[in-house]
């Protein structure tokens, strides 16, 4: 994979920001979009925009084929058994909320346990807090090791026969930790619990196989993997989805509507009330084609090289503290001397470099790290070693700048 050639396919990267070439290091927040994805959206709206599953007319058929074709692409991308197991959602948050609200409230009771980790994104914490509140269940946290990883003996100890749901992120958006989902899922199943996976940060960057992981639910977002915003998917094992009630009711999701009662469509449409996210799904399908053409294994190898290079270059700078394990996904979360991460991000921005500063929607993790905020540089297939060099150079300037004003 040649990152410089890949870059050419992302028109947004070819610009100057504040008088400097843009160095985009915030892909963990949202990735940039390649030309084929932008074209797919444009093509849909120009040529065959129409509602799905109802029009007898030609455009309606084209739109339905595009939408359902995208579902098959998602199925194949994560290796689900059938498209019945793929529900389109607004993103990871909506997908996890669907599981929590529909499955969680029905299958969890007083005295039961839900197990998550302190490194979770807020979207994989709050839905479970709400389930615990409503059902009288206990929300338990797996402990973290010093380097921000999970140890399997701890998992064995924390998950008990009272545990009904275990929900863990596959890759941490703040630490870069890659969690042993397959092993955790096996322990969950041994105890009669189901395994939910937040795949927002893994799906864009590594090959995901839901059958290999043997998870029960898997949630991810399109916009972090070169797709449009507002589209994501929930994978669920058919047997579980079949027994779950929808949480949104209305058009599209019904089989028959009477005056007092109604019945639902079959899977997966019973969970897709209202006009679905047609353009978004078609755009996500184009993003999957794009990623498959390049190859997830090539993307993973490239990011590994870039993040290792970044860690090495950062270790040459005094006063940089890096959080998380050595072996990590393609992001680096750090603090720089006494300079607050917002100030770091503002100075880097003046140099055309986009990084994230704040709590990364992981306040419990920030508390665990004993910091109020951190800065994060996250990488994707279009980032190069030159990007890392520009980033490190600007970071050194930041230190000098604040060194001077602090005098």
């Amino acid at each position: 994979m040649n990152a410089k050639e890949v870059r050419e396919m992302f028109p947004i990267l070819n610009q100057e920001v504040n008088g400097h070439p843009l160095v985009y290091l915030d892909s963990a927040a949202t990735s940039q979009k390649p030309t084929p994805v932008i074209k797919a959206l444009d093509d849909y709206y120009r040529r065959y925009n129409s509602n799905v599953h109802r029009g007898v007319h030609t455009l309606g058929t084209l739109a339905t084929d595009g939408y359902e074709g995208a579902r098959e692409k998602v199925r194949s991308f994560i290796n689900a058994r059938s498209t019945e197991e793929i529900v389109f959602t607004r993103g990871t948050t909506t997908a996890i909320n669907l599981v929590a609200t529909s499955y969680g409230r029905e299958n969890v009771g007083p005295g039961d346990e839900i197990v998550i980790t302190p490194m979770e994104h807020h979207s994989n914490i709050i839905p479970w807090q709400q389930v615990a509140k409503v059902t009288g269940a206990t929300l338990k946290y797996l402990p973290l090791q010093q380097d921000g990883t999970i140890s399997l003996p701890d998992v064995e100890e924390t998950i008990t026969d009272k545990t009904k749901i275990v929900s863990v992120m596959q890759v941490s958006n703040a630490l870069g930790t890659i969690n042993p989902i397959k092993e955790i899922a096996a322990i969950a199943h041994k105890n009669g619990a189901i395994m939910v996976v937040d795949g927002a940060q893994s799906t864009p960057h590594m090959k995901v196989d839901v059958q290999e992981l043997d998870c029960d639910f898997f949630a991810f977002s399109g916009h972090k993997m070169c797709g449009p915003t507002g589209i994501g998917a929930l994978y669920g094992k058919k047997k579980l989805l079949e027994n779950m009630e929808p949480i949104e009711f209305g058009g599209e999701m019904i089989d028959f509507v009477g005056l007092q009662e109604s019945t639902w469509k079959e899977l997966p449409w019973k969970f897709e009330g209202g006009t679905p996210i047609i353009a978004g799904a078609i755009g996500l399908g184009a993003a999957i084609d794009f990623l498959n053409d390049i190859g997830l294994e090539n993307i993973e190898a490239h990011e590994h090289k870039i993040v290792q290079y970044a860690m090495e270059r950062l270790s040459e700078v005094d006063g940089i503290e890096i959080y998380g394990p050595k072996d990590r996904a393609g992001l680096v979360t750090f603090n720089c001397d006494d300079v607050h991460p917002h100030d770091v991000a503002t100075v880097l921005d003046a140099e055309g470099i986009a990084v994230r500063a704040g709590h990364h929607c992981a306040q419990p993790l920030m508390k665990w790290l004993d910091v109020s905020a951190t800065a994060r540089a996250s990488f994707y297939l279009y980032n190069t070693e030159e990007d890392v060099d520009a980033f490190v150079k600007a970071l050194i300037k930041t230190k000098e700048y604040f060194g001077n004003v602090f005098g």
Partner: protein
Amino acid sequence: MSLGNQLDTLYRQVIMDHYKNPRNRGELEGDSLNINMNNPTCGDRIQLQMKVEDGKIADAKFVGEGCSISLSSASMMTQAIKGLTVDDALKLSEIFSAIMLGKDYDEDKFDLGDIEALQGVAKFPARIKCATLAWKAMEKGLNEQEEE
């Protein structure tokens, strides 16, 4: 070394001085108005305490976590409101909002002093919320005690 004029308009010397040596940092003893406020988008936090006597702000102190802009703004704010009537403190807060929005403001009534150094923040929209956190806490505390 300079990173360009625009950054220098944000990080003025007086701001860095307040950041490095915050005025009125700490907690008040005895009864006081106590306001906790977060900036949920970035994790900044402030606890502001004010003592109001005879309609005037007799004392104000803060503790908090945040960037140079949010902490220096808190420092300057506490300095500016001490001795003001509650109404004037709220008026000053309105003026500060206008400054942040890059709008014209009537400054005759108040000596803005160090606060004027924060004018540059208006050019950095992502940082305006940092600068206004302490002011919002002050407004909230004073408005709530007026209602009582």
